[in-house]
């Protein structure tokens, strides 16, 4: 076991989910993920983008010296840096789908575990930059909620909550999004971690692939975006949900409570069609998000979370002109 604070990978390389699982605490995992994510990036942990000037803040070590307001220095003889509206108080909601389907795992870690790694890393990062972040765990209803706050123990509380989350219940993303919509009064960054399964009505066989199905969850997402929130969807699937790996006669049973669906089949017969169905499913969500101007990121739970975050943060930095 590597020592806390030391990266288990070499030279800050992104660490695989299986290796992260062996680490002691969520705090360590979060730090390692972030270090891996920032390997090769310009070391500026800010996620925010300059939109509108808000206030001056006294310079503290770690602040970007390029933001020092030299006119204020001339007037006050003290160092101030400019803060902009979205970064002055960027409230972030981390929304985790903790339904039973997220607990599925065959190889590596479950989707829920993977989601907690991502959420923890982001909570750690946001805490580091002093941004208020909140956490919401939901299944059919909101199970746990930590409102966004910039207080000192907020990150610790979030990590504790993430460490103890167990998959259970059915998915009702619509209700969760509706609730978040109510809670987020100001423009916020809403990060959603879900497998998005059973969140859209089944698509008919001859459905036009250019038509994006809009289930309740997709509609709620679009509404959030319309209200000015910055919404990011982390679509997480187990590798088994991308390519059906099973052999021999198998009886598939639905995992979520109350779902009585079963399917007896030779996986060989379905493998090709399943891979295509999975691809179509992801494609539909990607197009639905693009249409609603929502950032969509897909990840298999075999992929190192650091890679996913590096791509995510890198793109954010490029967008804000800081990268």
């Amino acid at each position, binding site marked *: 076991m590597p020592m806390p604070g030391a990266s288990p990978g070499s030279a800050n390389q992104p660490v695989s989910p299986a290796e992260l699982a062996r680490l002691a605490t969520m705090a360590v995992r979060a730090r390692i993920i972030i270090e891996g994510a920032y390997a090769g990036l310009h070391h500026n942990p800010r996620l925010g983008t300059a939109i509108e000037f808000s206030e001056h803040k006294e310079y503290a070590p770690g602040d970007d010296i390029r933001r020092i307001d030299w006119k204020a220095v001339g007037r006050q003889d003290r160092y101030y840096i400019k803060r902009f509206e979205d970064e002055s108080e960027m409230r972030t909601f981390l929304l985790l789908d903790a339904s039973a389907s997220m607990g599925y795992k065959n190889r590596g870690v479950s989707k829920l575990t993977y989601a907690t790694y991502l959420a923890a890393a982001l909570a750690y990062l946001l805490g580091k930059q002093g941004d208020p972040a909140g956490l919401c765990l939901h299944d059919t209803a909101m199970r746990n909620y930590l409102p966004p706050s910039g207080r000192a123990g907020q990150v610790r509380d979030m990590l504790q909550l993430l460490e103890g989350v167990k998959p259970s219940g059915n998915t009702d993303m619509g209700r969760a999004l509706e609730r978040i919509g109510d809670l987020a009064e100001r423009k916020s960054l809403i990060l959603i971690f879900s*497998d998005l399964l059973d969140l859209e009505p089944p698509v008919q066989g001859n459905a036009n692939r250019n038509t994006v199905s809009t289930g309740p969850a997709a509609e709620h997402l679009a509404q959030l975006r319309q209200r000015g929130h910055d919404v990011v969807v982390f679509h997480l699937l187990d590798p088994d949900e991308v390519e059906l790996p099973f052999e021999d006669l198998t009886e598939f049973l639905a995992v979520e409570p109350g779902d009585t669906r079963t399917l007896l089949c030779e996986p060989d017969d379905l493998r090709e069609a399943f891979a295509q169905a999975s691809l179509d499913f992801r494609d539909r969500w990607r197009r639905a998000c693009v249409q609603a101007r929502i950032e969509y990121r897909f990840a298999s739970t075999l992929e190192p979370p650091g890679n996913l975050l590096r791509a995510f943060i890198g793109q954010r930095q490029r967008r804000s002109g800081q990268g």
Partner: protein
Amino acid sequence: MGLLAPSLLLGLIAAAIPYLVHRIGKRTPRPVLFAAMQLLSEAQRRVRARTRIREIALLVLRTAAAAALPFIFSRPFIERETLAPQVSLAPQSAVILLDDSASMRRKIGRLTSWERAIERAQEIVRQLSPESAVALVLATVETPTPAGDLTLEHTRIEAALATTEVSARPVDFSRAIARAQALLANASHNERRIYVITDNQASGWENVDPKPVEGSPTVTVLDVGKTSATDNRAIVGLETIAEPELGPGGIAVTAEVAAWGDSIEGKLPITLFVDGRAVTQGVVELSSDGRGRKKFVHVLPTDGDGAHQVGVEIPADAFPLDDRRITSFMPGQAPRILIVNGDPRTEKTEDETFFLESALQTVGGGVSIDTILLDDVSAELMHNRDVVFVANVATPTNDFARLLIEHVKRGGGLFLSLGEKVSAEQWNLELGPVLPQPIGLQRTASALPGHNASARTGYVAEGELVDDRPAERFAPIDRQHPLLGTFGADGEGLSSTRIYKYFLLEPAPETEHREVILSYETGAPALVERTFPPASAGAHDPGRVLLLSTTLDREWTDLPIRPGFLPLVAESVRRLSGAPSGGETRSVLVGQPRPITIGRKHLRLEIEKPNRQVWIARRGINDPDKKLTFTETDEPGTYRVRASSTDNTLARLPVEDFVVNLDPRESNPTRRNDSAVAANAANDQPAPRYKMPLWHNLGAALILLVLAESVFSLVRRKRLTPV
């Protein structure tokens, strides 16, 4: 179908195994809690139909394979009649006599009679015991025997059967059976049989005695035409003659159509075609005897230099070979003839040229004849004449002689006949340059020792006054000469001719351009030919002069009233005018010989048969004209002739092209009369039956089923296994 071990069919219960395995013996599935049920359901919906079909196909394959095994063990069979007769089972010496005549090409259902005959012959060979000796003989005239020795190697006969082809020749069973009997004469077995496999068409059996002869091999006739209909429609005759009224190239084509069987009366469409292209269509009406004639008139193009293939065609029936017939016709061949009459008479029959003119009318082909007296001769009248006859002209004038010499040197033909009025001295003087031999003294025949001058020998027409004067006859003729080729071997039509008086001909230097064609018994020349080659090669045909040393009327000979007179005159005109010898021989029947001459101008002759095979004959450089007989007239159609000259250039000789037509006897589908067939019935006992096993085929089917199942499963796995 039967089974040798039906109890083993109980094993068919095994056919239920795949189904039972499918229904009962299912494997225990592995339960898996799976989140993406939504994706699984969609995948299953996509492949449901395909999977179901594949499952059913696999189940059927496996059931069929399971059922096939006990079915094979029960050894199924079917009973079949063999095509070979019962009598072929005993050890014997046998000759298979195959009717390969044209009528065997008639189609009966799916197969022709020939194909059935081959099947039957193969069955006999297979059924013959190993110690039986067998030979294979074909029944048509002049056809080589494929396997003409009795042999115990039955595979040789089978190989010969596989390669033997049906001919278009007519058949003669009396000769064929005699050949087979000769083969069996020294056979080692007491049992000797001739299996005649035929369609039992009556033609060809005329000379066969249906009653078996004591001690001779037994003839077993196997009828492969039993089920054939006896109706047929055929073109049995075709004649093409010139029709001068239509202008140059005008022809009249007369086709004779015959029908047998059910539809002998009625109308039948008939098409005239020229050089392979249909030019007109008509209808031929068949009378109650099934016969009908149709005459077409047509104008052939005259710009070509070759013969035209003129034919007629009726709609094809089961025997299409006789539904088409062709002739070869050379337009513009009507010779223009001038006769100079040296002894005109008021009494028509006593006129010098009466018999000649009558004979010339029969030449046909639109021949034009003008008869004049010596005083009327002019250059204009001589112009463009193909043949000039000079009959008993007393003293040819200098101008007349000059015109004749020019005519011959231009390539024209000249026929000189002598008589009482001829002045030999004047002829030799004026016509010396063209005379084949100088004319000598007159000779009157006298009774030779042993000859009775008044004896009535030879042909005497009814009511004829017999001339009792002493007479000479012609010496035996040489049929190889083109001019005499149409006469019989014994000179029939000429041999009985009586010659009372003639001119002796003076000796002349031997040259290749002079030839005695006919002689008298005394050896004196009767008909002499002299050829005048053109000054330059290919300028024109050679000029020819024929000199008859007696008269063309009955004054010195009875030749004009002999049957040979007409063909002699006709052939003389053709030879002198440069037309091919014997117009009627441009068309022969299948199997008939065709005389061929390689002339002096050519060294090699090629004949291309309708099947594109080429027959080649050569002549030595120093040899005279080479006379040959072409016998490979196997197939109906056009036979094209090419010749290479001394400079080795091969060129077509369209005037020598000829056509071969089917023997009309082969068209008559009338079968042998019932009594003849009945006489053979005792031999044609019911064919033996044998059990044909099916388990081999079923075994093969099982292997295929298992293979199909394996391939099916393998392909499915390969396609679905993730890489």
